[in-house]
């Protein structure tokens, strides 16, 4: 990256520019918020000020970091499992009408049941350890992985499959070398939704039974009516979620430079 290539330079510049825009935007939000609190003076219980939230964070940064890391761990575990399982299911659903009608339908039904309602049952069945939290993260993330992967795997140009079949490619090779790369843009759309929901799942799990993590921290803070602390956690969650999302997006840019949606708008050469 310490390349003197002008393309890299301009890329780096563009990335910096974009980050700058986001920072500016956030700064704007913070200022408006602070001003609103200053003017309307709501009780901190209802809406704390950004500076109040920041002070709260400074009281125990190590604590918040520890909680965030725990949540991050649960999220990633749930997400990875969801990706593996989801892609597997999608392949099955695309290849077998039977799978489509059974697994798919069950999945749809299951996803309609809110995890907050199921979570207590999970805890009753799986205990208060990390397993039910990972399971909830997995379940929340799974659905969008499957739906988008199914679309992607199905949306292949029939002639591409013919090309592979003409070389007597095995079903597995067609999947690996044609359907899957072709599905990747769609899969990544699913992953971007999934990483967000995995985080939500981890928190929901911590809500129901937990003694660590941001979800737990929110609950304790709520128990204390410490709204500033709740907001610290919420903001950390937002940051964590944003970071995870952009990691997935960076991965997408890295893996799919070939896809139209990733090319510079207006086509190359501009």
């Amino acid at each position, binding site marked *: 990256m310490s390349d003197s290539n002008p393309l890299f330079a301009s890329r780096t510049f563009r990335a910096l520019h974009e980050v700058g825009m986001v920072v500016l935007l956030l700064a704007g939000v913070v200022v408006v918020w602070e001003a609103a609190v200053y003017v309307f003076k709501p009780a901190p219980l209802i809406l704390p000020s950004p500076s109040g939230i920041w002070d709260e964070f400074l009281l125990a940064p190590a604590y918040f970091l520890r909680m965030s890391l725990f949540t991050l761990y649960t999220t990633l575990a749930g997400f990875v499992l969801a990706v593996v399982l989801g892609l597997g299911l999608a392949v099955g659903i695309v290849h077998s009408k039977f799978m489509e009608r059974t697994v798919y339908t069950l999945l749809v039904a299951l996803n309609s049941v809110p995890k907050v309602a199921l979570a207590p049952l999970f805890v009753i069945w799986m205990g208060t350890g990390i397993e039910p939290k990972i399971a909830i993260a997995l379940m929340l993330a799974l659905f969008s992985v499957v739906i988008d992967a199914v679309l992607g795997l199905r949306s292949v140009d029939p*002639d591409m499959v013919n090309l592979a*079949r003409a*070389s*007597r490619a095995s079903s597995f090779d067609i999947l690996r*070398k044609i359907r899957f790369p072709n599905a990747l843009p769609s899969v990544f759309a699913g992953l971007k939704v999934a990483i967000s929901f995995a985080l939500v799942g981890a928190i929901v799990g911590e809500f129901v039974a937990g003694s660590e993590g941001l979800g737990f921290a929110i609950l304790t803070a709520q128990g204390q009516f410490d709204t500033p602390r709740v907001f610290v956690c919420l903001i950390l969650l937002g940051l964590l979620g944003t970071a995870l999302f952009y990691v997935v997006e960076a991965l997408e840019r890295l893996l799919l430079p070939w896809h139209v949606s990733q090319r510079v708008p207006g086509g190359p050469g501009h």
Partner: protein
Amino acid sequence: MNVHTASMTGTAMAYVSISGVRKTYGSPRGPVAALEGIDLQVREGEFVSILGPSGCGKSTLLKCIAGLEPTTAGQIVIDGRPLKGPPHDMGMVFQRDVLLDWRTILDNVLITAEFIGRKGPEVRARASALLARFGLGGFEDRHPWELSGGMRQRAAICRALLCDPKLLLMDEPFGALDAMTRDDLNLELARIWQDTRKTVVFITHGISEAVFLSDRVVMMDRNPGRIVEIIDIDLPRPRHLALRETPEFGRYVAHIRHLFASLGILKDDDPETGSGDHS
């Protein structure tokens, strides 16, 4: 000049044997008859071209031979085995270059080798050599969308040739090429055929190209798609471009043009046309 109204000579040694093939596409607006009563034998090592008006079912026939489209009726036997899915050792060039956007040109060419489990530096070297031979040297690392139409088509031809297949099916491989590059590649293809004696089924729009390359030319008509005539091209091999200036060559071309004209496919605002090749 030998003219067969149906097919044949030496069914015993036929590499591709098509008998009574009919193909009907289903569509929301009712069935579409694409092929009707197709009979054709292609001998091992023979070069057969298919000529016919747009929409007469040439691509459909080629896909049926490739085992990519199931036939509605009739039978296709390849190398003695009734066709069930794509046969062994076949290379295919599709009418649309079907290049994979996520692979570089070199990797696009290599994919056929990957499918049959061949890898390693020799295959890569062979792919690079093929690309260079087809005027794409230096473009190995580009992506398909960075290439012109003709360049894409040439890459697709390299892909089909990479694994040196016994049976080569080509659907208008030179359609997007300029006259000059086309002549070049005609010679290249003739040379490859001469060296390796592949069995080739070649769809083209160029009458002169068909005559120049083929042992036999199959003429089709549409509604429904059917074979109207098959002629043997008894011209000496190896062939040079100069052959096209000879009167025998001209006679074959004229014969084909006349046939199509008589079928009402070829028409003109001027009655004196109908001879010579000006595609």
